[in-house]
Each structure stands twice: as C-alpha cells, then as structure tokens.
C-alpha cells in the first residue's frame, strides 16, 4: 500500500512538472497582451482615421509610439517551441511558426517596419493616418494568414 502511494506520489509529481513545463501561461499572457496593446492603440488611430474621434496630434503620436515600442519586443522568448495550438490550449499560434520560423520572424520584422512608418505619419495630420494604418493592417494580415489559426 505504502509502495502504491509512493508510486502515485511520484506519478503525480511527474505529471505536475510536465504540465507546468508545457503550459507556457506567462508567454501566452505576454504575447496576447502585446497584441492587445497594439489593438487598443490602433483603436485610437483607427477612430481618428475614420473620423469617429477628433484628431489630436499628441494623442495620435503617443498611440503610434506605443505600437512602435511594443513591436520592438524580441519574439523569441514570447514564442517558445511547443507553445502552439496543437500542443496547448488557449492559443491560436500555429505550428508553422516553428516549422517555418524564418518566415515568421520576417513577418514579425515587417510589423515593426510598418509600425515605424505609422510612427512617422501619426503626427502629420488626420489624412496621413489612414494609409499608414493600411500598411500596418497589411503586416497584421500577412502574419495571421499563415501563422494564426481561426477562432477556437
């Protein structure tokens, strides 16, 4: 009996360790938070581009600066191998991120390039935002097209 409990204990420990090692909770929070920071600031710029929010150069600049900053975060630590949608719950990250990592990194770099263009345009007036926003949207789509699964 004691032996059985011992084995059970070891098994539970082993399972617990395995689960903790593969859950990537911190990484999911970080990268989903990163996307959310981009989205919230795009909401400000998009609202101005559509004319729903009055254009204000300082507010637009701050939003674009935030997007430029958050897209500079190095992707490696946020997307560790094994944190794909087939391996764990709570993510739409496709395995292609790792099977075609060079392609993913190139798309990620293009996002920052587009964010820099938006940063340069944001203070230049309401009409300048729309086209720069289009470029950033293209970068979002280009990556999501290949590397993100549909909603779960």
């Amino acid at each position: 009996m004691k032996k059985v409990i011992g084995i059970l204990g070891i098994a539970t420990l082993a399972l617990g360790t395995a689960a903790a090692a593969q859950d990537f909770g911190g990484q999911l929070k970080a990268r989903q938070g990163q996307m959310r920071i981009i989205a919230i600031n795009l909401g400000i710029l998009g609202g101005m581009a559509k004319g729903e929010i009055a254009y204000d150069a300082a507010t637009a600049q701050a939003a674009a600066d935030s997007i430029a900053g958050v897209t500079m975060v190095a992707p490696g630590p946020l997307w560790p191998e094994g944190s794909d949608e087939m391996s764990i719950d709570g993510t739409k990250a496709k395995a292609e991120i790792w099977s075609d990592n060079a392609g993913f990194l190139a798309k990620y770099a293009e996002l920052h390039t587009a964010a820099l263009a938006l940063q340069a345009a944001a203070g230049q007036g309401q009409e300048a935002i729309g086209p720069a926003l289009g470029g950033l949207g293209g970068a979002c789509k280009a990556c999501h097209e290949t590397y993100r699964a549909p909603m779960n």
Partner: protein
Amino acid sequence: MRRALILLAAAGLAAAALGWWLTAPARLAPDVFDGITGDVTQGAAVFTAAGCASCHHAPGATGEAALVLAGGQRFDSDFGTFLAPNISPHPEAGIGGWNLAQFADAVQRGVSPEGAHLFPAFPYTAYARMTPQDVANLWAYLQTLPASDTASLPHEVGFPFNIRRGVGAWKLLFFRPDWVRPADTPQLERGRYLVEALAHCGECHTPRNALGALDTGRWLAGAPNPNGKGEIPALIPNALDWAAQDIAYYLETGFTPDFDSAGGHMAEVVANFGRLTAADREAVAAYVKALPAP
C-alpha cells in the same frame, strides 16, 4: 414465374438506366451567351470578387505571382484532399484550349469539357448564380493572365467519393442555383450577388450536412474550419453585432471593431474585398445586417 423474373430484371435495368440518365452531367443551354461579349476590365473586378486567385495561385504566391493561376494548393476535407488545378490560359496545362461555353459549363454547372462532373470543392454551386455577362467578362479577363505549364495534380479522394457519377447524384439532391435570401433593394441585391454568387461566403461560413452540402437552413450561421482546427465565425445577428460600417471597414482593412485583424483564408478574402469599390463593401455589409436571427 419466368415472366416475373424477366419483368423484375427489366425493371432493374430500367431503374439503372434512369439513374444513369439522371446523374448525367447537365450543361447550360446553348444560347446563353448569344449576343454577349466579354469585357476585360469588368472581368478583372469579377475575378477579384470571386476570389479565383486565392485558391488557384501556386502555394504561397503573392503579389504579381498570384496572378499565375498554376494551381497546386491543397484543400483537405472529410472526403479527401482536393488540389486546385491549373486554370491559366496555357493551351495544354491550363484552360487555354477551352471556349466560353465550356468554361461556363465548368463554372456554373460543374461539368468539364470532357463531360465529367467536377467536385463541388470548386464552388460552382455559388457561381451558378452569376450573370452570363459576368461569366463572359471573367473569361475575357482570364485570357489576359500569364500562362503556366505546371501540370494539374489529381485529387486525393478515396472510394466511394472518387466515383464521378456520385457527384451527379449529389447535384440532384443538393445543387440549387436559386437565391438563398430575399433582396428588395438594389443595394441588397448587389450584396446578395457578392455574398451568394461571386465571393461564395457560404462555402466556409455555412455548416454542411453529412454529404458535404451546405445547410441553407443555417445560412452563414458559422461552421467548423474545413481545413483544420477552430471555427469559421457566424455572421447572423445573435453572433455578429458589428455595425454596417464596421463590417465594411473590416472588409476594406481587415481590422475588427476592436482592432484584431483578419487571419487565415479570410486575410485573402479581405485583400480581394479591399480592391472592390466602397459601394460593394457597403452592399455586403447591408446584406449581412439583413440576415435573420435564428
């Protein structure tokens, strides 16, 4: 007794003959294109709205290269894997040897020039609702695209779905080229034409029955992703509460109201819709907003 057997055999033969006749490929009427000439510029817009390149460009092709309709993309399904064929104007490898009537039979009736049924992975069930003028426009535009000598690859579909006559029976049961939704304004009519015919939105957004036919009773009510994990979202009122201008903006930019962005195959759809007119995007939005709650 012998007479009964003969009668039975005759009845069986008659049923088989009737079945063979019923499942025979049906072409369009021969006079559909009388007096119609295709227009290349109009055809380019039809081509974009219909998303032809999204499935028929070579795997991974973007930009100008996506106008070479060499085929080769793979589409997994419950019935096997379909491989998009070469539809470039190459005379042997593509469809350069076809004429307009043959093209229209393929696009609107799912019948090849050789008289074989095409698998409905090719959305001729939606394209059947296209006007003859738009089919002619599209045909004219396709001639202007680059030819590719890439050979089309066979579909990877197992028994019994590889029996083409079975597709004839499927068509008898499920092929209904009439409209799904009413449309009583010109804008709704245009939206319906884009959604139900050209952009074939129902192919992914409407659930299918066990035989792979769209369940029009649950039109655009969302469905499992046909090519992997996840769900294709529902567009009906209880599921999608975006304003009409939000839908139009999404189709233009790929941004949702809370600035998430389109992904997967929808990113290609948005790239196409972004090249259409604002009026077309607003028409699609109007159609979506007019969908009934379940």
